[in-house]
Structure formats: structure tokens, C-alpha cells
């Protein structure tokens, strides 16, 4: 249901986000309310914008209160005494306070607006059809749980008036079996878009913690954006050094291995996962690969390119390669890719020098709306 106030509300949100009326931003104060969610205290931020007026300064003001205490006691009683003040509860349970801020969906929208990301074009497959039940009609038979009270009542009323048993002085209506009406449903068919992201990361010795952090930040944002675009987005995680394996999300960001780098191993596994689980005709597929670009040998790089050309690219929406700069100097791989795929729109490469470059890189990856 839309409310009249929605417009005012969205204007307020936009001011808070700094999209409009920048001159008001300096009046924004970050208030909070403390709420309870299960066992945890949650802090609910409520940004407030105070319109400046002629008003009294705070500290000289004081006031009149009511309650126990002697002169010199703090107002509101000693801490821990009584059950007042959300502020105190906050102090005691400082550790458990969670932030409830904007939802991830909102975040994704902000990201989309900030980076001017286009909404993603679905690969145009409507082959997967989901069936959904919708209650649209009325039947004479059905389970009691679906009985339509109003319609049943109307039928009963109609019958009793028609048959002359209706007495306005004592308007009692007794529905009979044939009066009963039930809600009935129709199956609706809707095309669904499916999407999977395959994250691949180089975890060879040269990828340090900082590099992983960059990958983590970037993949979080990519994940958030794509989730906004597709419902039921799946993610798969592959790590590789000289060999590749599939891991869960947790491991993906935490593993640090040493050893050489054979990127082809990851691409092979990636192609394999796609073949086994995600038929290209039904899925929007997004492989993302992050590495520092130091591949073991030129031969392996050529294998990679072969794999991409034959196995991966025909099946995916786009292939993204992000090269994180490592302390040992940036690798060659990104240049090789650019050389071979300079004309292929599906391959997007990006070099990520440091954390600040993450934003630009996301824009490079997602800016095409594939």
C-alpha cells in the first residue's frame, strides 16, 4: 500500500544520503534508539535533521525533574538503580549492540546510483518457468479453510430472502451446504531468472592479507549488486594455487596457501562446475577471477586462454578478471588477457591497485549491464 507520506520520506532519505540539498547535511545528527531483537540489543539509527532556530543553549538551561535523590546527585539516579533510561542498558550491554542500518537491498540501490550501474540485462531466457498459485476465483466446492465468508453469507442471505424465511427483526442467517463458496486458485506461470557467480581467487604465496581484503570487499559489493538484480542468486567459490578446489565462502576469504600459480587449474574447474550444474541455456553465469597475475608459465597462460575461448566464454554473461597489485609487483596475466580478448566485450579486466581502487573496479566490472 502506498502512503501519501512516501514522497516526503524518500526526499528525506535522499537528503540523508546526500543526494540532494547538500546544504542540509550539516544539520544531520545521528540519533539512535535502542531496541531489542531476541536476546540482543540493537541500535536503530535514526538520522535527524534539525532545522536551526533561535533556541536556548543547552548547558545553562537545566530544568525541573521529579524523583529520588539529594542535591548533587546525577539526574536519573545512580547507574544501575531503577529501570530507567535506555542509555544505561546500552552501556551495560555494549558488546551486544548490533547496528540495524539500511538493508542490503537499499545498499545495492545506493551502489547502483552512485556508480551509475545499469540494471543488468537478463540473458533473455525465459525457459525456466516457476509455477505460482494465485487465489483469483470462487468455486462451489473446496476445503473449509478456504471458505469465502462474505460470498457464503451473501448466498445464504439471498436464498433466505428468496425463500421468505428472512426476518429483518431477527436477521439470523444459517448457511447451508449449497450456499458455501470457496476461494479457488489458478496456477500462474512466471519466467525466472537464475544467476550464479563463480568466484575464483589466487591464494598462492604472493597473495597477502591486504590483497585478500581487497578481494573480499570487492566481491561483497558485487555479490550485493547481483543479488539485487536476481532473486535466488547462487555463489560458488574456487581457490587455486597450482591446483584448484572448490571451497565454502568462509574458507574462500581466509585461506592462505603457498606455492605456485596455475591459473588454468581454476578455469578448468570453473568450466567443469558450469557444465555439471549450470546449463548455459538456463543460467546467467558470472565468473569473477581475482589474482595478482603471476602465472607459472606462458604455456599455462595459453592454456587458460584456450579454456576461456572454448569452454567458458560461450556459456557466460561475462567474464571478469580483477588483478590485485601484490607487494611483489604486478603480473603479466592481465596484459595477456587484454591482448587476446581486446575485441571481446564479454571479457572485462580491471587492475586494482589498492582499496581505494575498488570502487572504480566495480564500475568497470558491472558498468556494462551484462
Amino acid at each position, binding site marked *: 500500500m502506498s502512503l501519501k507520506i512516501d514522497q*516526503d520520506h524518500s526526499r528525506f532519505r535522499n537528503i540523508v544520503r546526500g543526494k540532494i540539498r547538500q546544504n542540509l547535511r550539516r544539520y544531520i545528527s545521528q540519533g539512535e534508539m535502542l531496541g531489542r531483537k531476541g536476546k540482543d540489543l*540493537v541500535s536503530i539509527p535514526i538520522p535527524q535533521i534539525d532545522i*536551526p532556530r*533561535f533556541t536556548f*543553549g543547552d548547558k545553562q538551561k537545566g530544568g*525541573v525533574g521529579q524523583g529520588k535523590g539529594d542535591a548533587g546527585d546525577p*539526574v536519573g539516579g545512580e547507574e544501575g538503580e531503577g529501570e*530507567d533510561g535506555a542509555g544505561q542498558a546500552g552501556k551495560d550491554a555494549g558488546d551486544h549492540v548490533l547496528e540495524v542500518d539500511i538493508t542490503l537491498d537499499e545498499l545495492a540501490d545506493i551502489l547502483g546510483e552512485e556508480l551509475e550501474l545499469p540494471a543488468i540485462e537478463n540473458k533473455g531466457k525465459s525457459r525456466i518457468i516457476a509455477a505460482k498459485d494465485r487465489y483469483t476465483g470462487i468455486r462451489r466446492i473446496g476445503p473449509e479453510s478456504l471458505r469465502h465468508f462474505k460470498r457464503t453469507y451473501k448466498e445464504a442471505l439471498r436464498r433466505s430472502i428468496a425463500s421468505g424465511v428472512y426476518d429483518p427483526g431477527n436477521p439470523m442467517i444459517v448457511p447451508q451446504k449449497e450456499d458455501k463458496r470457496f476461494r479457488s486458485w489458478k496456477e500462474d506461470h512466471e519466467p525466472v531468472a537464475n544467476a550464479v557467480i563463480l568466484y575464483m581467487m589466487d591464494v598462492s604465496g604472493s597473495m597477502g592479507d591486504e590483497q585478500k581484503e581487497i578481494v573480499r570487499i570487492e566481491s561483497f559489493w558485487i555479490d550485493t549488486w547481483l543479488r539485487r538484480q536476481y532473486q535466488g542468486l547462487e555463489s560458488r567459490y574456487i581457490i587455486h594455487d597450482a591446483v584448484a578446489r572448490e571451497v565454502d565462502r568462509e574458507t574462500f576469504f581466509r585461506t592462505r596457501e603457498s606455492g605456485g600459480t596455475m591459473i588454468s587449474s581454476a578455469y578448468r574447474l570453473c568450466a567443469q562446475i558450469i557444465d555439471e550444474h549450470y546449463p548455459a541455456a538456463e543460467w546467467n553465469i558470472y565468473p569473477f577471477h581475482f589474482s595478482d597475475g603471476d602465472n607459472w608459465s606462458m604455456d599455462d597462460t595459453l592454456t587458460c586462454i584456450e579454456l576461456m575461448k572454448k569452454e567458458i566464454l560461450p556459456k557466460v554473461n561475462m567474464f571478469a578478471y580483477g588483478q590485485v597489485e601484490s607487494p611483489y609487483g604486478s603480473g603479466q596475466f592481465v596484459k595477456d588477457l587484454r591482448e587476446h580478448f581486446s575485441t571481446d566485450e564479454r571479457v572485462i579486466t580491471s587492475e586494482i591497485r589498492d582499496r581505494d581502487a575498488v570502487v572504480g573496479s566495480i564500475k568497470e566490472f558491472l558498468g556494462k549491464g551484462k
Partner: protein
Amino acid sequence: MSQFATNTTLPRYLRDEQEKVEKIAKAHGLDFFPVVFEMLSYDHMNEIAAYGGFPNRYPHWRFGMEYERLSKSYEYGLSKIYEMVINNNPSYAYLLEGNSLTDQKLVMCHVFGHVDFFKNNFAFRATDLDAGEHIADPVGRRKEYDPNRRWVDKMANHGSAVRRIVDRYGIHKVEEFVDVCLSLENLIDPWSRFVVRRRESQTDEEPEQVEVPRLKSKDYMDEFINPSEYIEEQKKKMEAERELEKGKFPAQREQDVLLFLLENAPLERWERAILSIIRDEGYYFVPQMQTKIMNEGWASYWHSKMMTEDVCDWSEIVDYAENNAGVMATSGGRLNPYKLGVELYRNIEERWNKGQFGQEWEDCDDLDVKKNWDLRLGLGKQKVFEVRALYNDVTFIDEFLTPEFAMENKMFTFNWSNRNERYEIDTREFQAVKEKLLAQLTNFGNPSIFVEDANYENRGELLLVHEHRGVDLRSDYARETMASLVRVWKRPVSLATQIDGKKAVLRFDGKEHGVRHDAP
């Protein structure tokens, strides 16, 4: 009952309750406008509450801000709005869908208290749309009192007027100006409807000859008692003063700064329209601010009386009591207007029932006698009805807050302690408590600011004066507000005030803020 009540979507069982409660309220002597109850879902309730109780307002982001705060605090179970009622004839009151029947009854009782107050308290006469510019006698009124208070319509009209302006000039421009106006919103004269501030006729007359008042004396002593040099000197002084005042504009200080700006500032038509809307709406909310304690106290007094004596049956009384306790709670040492108000009314009722007033009572020093003082006058009910009609918060506290009451209710004053960086209890001494409370209520917590001179230093600049009563203005806000004034006045603006006990003049010329420490 008007046709409105039958038109609402209120379910049958609640309409029956309403009729019952209404009958009871009438029997108690309450006298109210017709009340239209409407049932709202929580998000509608939040929406309307954000609009200050009105279904339609002009578009502005701050309503959205309020809505966000209300709905978040509802969604996380921190608070919900039980009742809302607007001062309108007929009055509209809202019930929250999903509240228990006991709660709904409680709300209804409370609402009838409020509406009785709206209709009978003199301060609310200022919201009569058909009363003319000045209300000479706020208490006297026709027998069938049925004023035009169609503020719901007026606010909606304001809404469409502003929307039309927005269509023409764009939301950014208009909203920016609305913000400017809102930052000046509190610069109005709360009593202007009841007092004739400007005496136009005087200015037309030729000023009289300056006459120095002489001390009375016998003829032969006159030269000694009123020496001619002195008289001459005084005469010159007075003439000089009059000369100064001659060119002065406005002739007298004006507290209604907004009106002054409306009449004299170089505004475009649409700007004037908006400023005038903001001013009208500002005045609408004044009586509610002037009678917060009395109004809430009165409604609470009646809901508790009606619920416990007439409405509740034994199965509901515990639920009612719990809810009532929540409303009346004082926590964190803060003053709760509901609680303070209701206790004062009860105190007045008791005192007038027992005759604990008047010279004899005041003069009595014997605590024991005072404690058992009971003349069985039974004037309590009559007195509280009188009080609800003739007082506002300031006079209410001034007249009826007694040392005994303050002690019983454990009242104290508090102040900011620089040493401990916290608010600390200052004293429980009665005079101090009362003074502080009155100071807080005077001009309902707004500084008193006047237009002093519209041709300051003969440069067409605006000079405002802040009547300093012990508390400085908040300086960063003051600077921003000066900027809003300059936006409207289009010329530099100065404000005479005090900072840290010293006289100071703040000035803003559109570019730079300045402070001068010698007063004019």
C-alpha cells in the same frame, strides 16, 4: 450527533462503545465538539502522526523524517501511538487497529477529555477561524458555541497551495524556502489574538507639546522645587528622544517577527504565500504548547475517572491499570506532563472539596490543623472545570503548585555540572522549583525575540532584540537563523543579545558573521 460519526469505517462494536462512553462523559458534565473516531492501521497512524495529526499537509521532508522515526520505533517494538486527536470542529480522533478493546475504551475516554478541553479552554479560542483578528473576550461566548475550526480543510488547502507553487517553481527552490520559513517559525507572538498590539490611531494625531512633569508645589516655592534650568534640560532631553523615535520603524517593538516580515520584507508573491502558511500553522499549534500539562492532565484525569468508575468491568481493570501506569510513569527523573497535570487537578479538587484555600488557610501555620483541614465545601468539581477553562500552563502552575504538592511529588531542579559533566540535582527548595518550571513554560521554551528597528543605523538593516532572561542563545543555531533572516530581509540583519553575561550584537551581512560586544 452529526452525520460524520455514522460515516466512519468504525466497526459496529466500537461505535456502540463510543456511544456509551459519550453518554458517560456528558453525564459527568464534559462539553465537547462532535468526535469522529477513525480506525487506522499502524502505518497510516504513523503517517498521520508524522503530519501532526492531519491527513493532508504540504509536501516537506521533515514529515518523512518524523514518519521514519515513528515507524522504526514501532517496528522494533519501542513505542506505539495509542491515540491521536486533533483540535478541529468536529474533532477527529484515531484508534489504532489491533489494540485491545480495553485500550480502545481508554483512548475514547481520554479523547473526550481532550475535546472538552479544546472546546472550553480559552487559549484554544485563538484557533477559531471565524473569530476575527482580535478576540476581546476569550471567555465569554455564545450559548450554542459552534465555532469554525475546520483546520483539516485549511491544512489541506495549504497543501494544495504549496503543491501548485511547487509545480511552477520546482521542488528544490520551494522546499529551500520552506526550510528558511521553518527556521523562523517560532518568532511569533503567542498572545497576539488576545491583545491589541498596534494602536494605529495614535500615529495620525499631531504629537502633543512636550510637557515636563512638575513636582507639586506652592507658587512661591515653585522655582526652588522645579528649577527652570532643570525643566529646560529635561525638555530638551525629551524632545531629542521624541526626535529619535519619530523616524523609528516599527514604532513599537514587534514580537510577531513573521508578520512584520510578511508586511515589510521584499518577498515574491509565492514566497509571501508560503511564509503566511507557515505562520498560520505556527499559530494553530500555539495553544497546544501553552497548555500541554493542563490538556494532557485533563484528559488523563477523565480517562482514569471514567474508566474506573463507569466503563471498565472487573475483567478489564487490570489491563487498564497496567496501561495507565505506563502513561503516568516518570522515569529518569524527567517530568511527565500527564502525571504532573493529573496530580495537580486531583490536588485542586481535593483542596476545594475540603476548603483548603483562601486567607484563613494561607495564614494557618499549624501543620497538624492543616493536615486535617476539611470544611466539606464540595467545591472541587466546580473548581476543576473552572480551571480547565480559564488557565494555561503558566498560570496553572503559578497559582496551584503548592510547597506541599512539590514535596509530595519529589520535585527538584537540575543543572548541568561542568565539573562532573552531567546533569545534577540542584535543589528541592520550592521557590526555585517553581521559578524554574515557570521560566521553562514562559513562551513555551522559546527565547523572546522582537523586531526593534527596520532601518538600523539608517541603512535599511534589520535589528532584532533578544530579551535575555538568564540563558544564552545557542550560538551555531543563532548564526544559521540569521542567515535565514537575511534570505528573507535581503539586507544585513543584527541581533542584540547577551553572551556569557556581556551584551553583544550578532550581525550577518549575507557573507560574514560578526559579533560586536558593545551594545547599542
